[in-house]
């Protein structure tokens, strides 16, 4: 459960990346096509095989999840699987009425919205600074932002739980959102900085000369142009919080998020709950990521398509 939902973010962006570089390399191949070599062919097939495996790796669990959640409970446990289930909403229906699900869903939503707000309010200005100003330690700052993603959540979550109890924000959605924001912030900074870099500074300068102060120029010129991208980076922050399991499970007890709720009830709840819950978690994340994929690519330096 954990690996498939909390990391759903990474494989999907990975596979998109893989397909982007597939396009690159096939255009390179096209350039050298006038002298075909056997080696090229072998590499091409190896490459395709690799890409296929990666894509299946991501898609098969999601497909199973979807199939199972629209199957009847009997079909879920039964064998062999059918690709055309009876399309029963029994499982999903059961899920909705399972005790605690609705409040967990509400907590997940709330945590994700808080995370989104914190990540954008703090991340967008940092991204703007990185894009517009040259300052000492700029590269180190950028590096640290990326490195902070390498910090393992368990190391962070356990001491934080202690501190949260001391401060009195333990088992609160706001406290959890602050932890999720530390996960989302690096991405918010990187996405928004590449966004602001794409907006010519002359537009702002022209606005200054026409009587705007810095803030007015930002609001009237930069913000409208950056809004779609900022929205995308907000959505990404939302998804990160939505998918996060570990910190949620450690830091909340009564106010469980949906991920934490599902992990907690892993042993006692029936299989249908897991599938339906998994689906509820994965589908919005996938849809959101698909909608904003262009901005995620730009963060990785792959041109928009």
């Amino acid at each position, binding site marked *: 459960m954990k690996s498939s939902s909390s990391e759903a973010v990474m494989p999907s962006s990975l596979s998109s990346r893989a397909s982007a570089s597939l396009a690159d390399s096939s255009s390179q191949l096209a350039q050298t096509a006038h002298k075909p070599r056997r080696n090229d062919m072998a590499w091409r097939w190896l490459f395709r095989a690799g890409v296929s495996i990666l894509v299946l790796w991501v898609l098969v669990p999601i497909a199973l999840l979807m199939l199972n959640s629209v199957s009847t409970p009997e079909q879920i446990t039964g064998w062999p699987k059918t690709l055309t289930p009876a399309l029963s909403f029994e499982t999903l229906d059961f899920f909705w009425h399972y005790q605690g699900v609705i409040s967990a869903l509400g907590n997940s939503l709330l945590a994700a919205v808080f995370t989104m707000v914190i990540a954008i309010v703090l991340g967008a200005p940092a991204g703007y600074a990185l894009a517009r100003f040259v300052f000492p330690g700029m590269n180190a700052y950028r590096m640290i932002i990326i490195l902070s993603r390498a910090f393992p959540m368990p190391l962070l979550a356990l001491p934080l739980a202690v501190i949260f109890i001391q401060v009195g924000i333990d088992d609160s959605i706001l406290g959890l959102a602050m932890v999720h924001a530390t996960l989302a912030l690096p991405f918010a900074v990187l996405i928004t900085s590449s966004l602001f870099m794409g907006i*010519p500074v*002359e*537009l702002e*300068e*022209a*606005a*200054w*000369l*026409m*009587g*705007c*102060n810095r803030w*007015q120029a930002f609001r*009237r*010129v930069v913000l*409208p*142009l950056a809004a779609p991208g900022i929205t995308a980076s907000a959505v990404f922050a939302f998804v990160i919080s939505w998918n996060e399991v570990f910190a949620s499970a450690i830091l909340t007890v009564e106010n469980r998020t949906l991920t934490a709720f599902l992990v907690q009830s892993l042993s006692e709840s029936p299989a249908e709950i897991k599938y339906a819950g998994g689906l509820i978690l994965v589908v919005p994340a996938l849809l959101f990521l698909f909608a904003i994929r262009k901005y995620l690519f730009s963060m990785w330096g792959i041109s928009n398509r």
Partner: protein
Amino acid sequence: MSAIQISAVSKQFGKQEILKSIDLEIRDKEFTVLLGPSGCGKSTLLRIIAGLEYESSGSIRIGEREITSLAPRDRRIAMVFQNYAVFPHMTVAENIAFGLRVRKDSEAHIQRKVKETAALMHIEDRLDHYSGQLSGGQRQRVAVARALATEPEVLLMDEPLSNLDALLRLEMRAELKTILAASDTTTIYVTHDQVEAMSLADRIAVMKGGQIEQYAPPSEIYHYPATEFVGSFIGNPPMNFIPPDARWNHPTRSEQSSQQVHKCGIRPEDFEVRFEPTENFAPVRVLVSELLGSHKQLTARFGDEMIRVNVPSDLEVGNGGDIHIRPLAEKVRFYDHSGHLMSA
């Protein structure tokens, strides 16, 4: 609509000195062109005037106002950028109205001003378009209209025509000239195209390595280059710089000052040509002869130097032929060892 006074403005980027104490006085309503090779600091100077870059030292006045420490928005300056900087999320009309809206002019005045400037720049039928729907030339027109709409005291332009194709550039150049002459705006215009500079400017400031070599009207720049650099930068082909030649027997130089003459500067078109050896003429060997329509351009060897000589296009001179030349006496300029024009 105001004179500009730039006093001892210098600029360092780190240890690099980009502008070295620039002094420049621009008269009210004057059209000044900053001309110079790439990297000489033209844009930097322009951006300092606009307040987009801080000077390291020095001061700038517009009219009676000291603007050195003012923010860009308080300088009453408009600027046209090389990449136009037309706001992509606003229509042409909104772009032109932008500055007026920011300073909260009445909506009636804004509408009138937008119509007026759009008509002036011939974009009145594009008012509802976005910049993505415009050609480069049209975007340029929007940028100029937007700048003029605010009736700035000073208009700055940084290579505004360099992204246009040659024909359009010619057309816009002529149009800009008439429009700006009528608008009474004091204009500073950056370019590295000398033809553009010659055709537009009331006065040209020729820059090199962060300094102003000469600030003078185009004809003076052309006929009396203040330094060897100016002579060789302006004019196509550039001025010839050759050691003084006794045979030419220049009457204007006294014996004493001719000691100090290091180089003579002579424009290619300022030579007399003979086919036979003649008194006071010097022989040169023609290496290349190119017919350029209105005239013929000869590249010739004169002693150790290469020189360019323009002759009438019907003059029959073949490659490898010998001719005899003498500069027109009143057209020779004399330069001292430091490369500066010696006063006659």
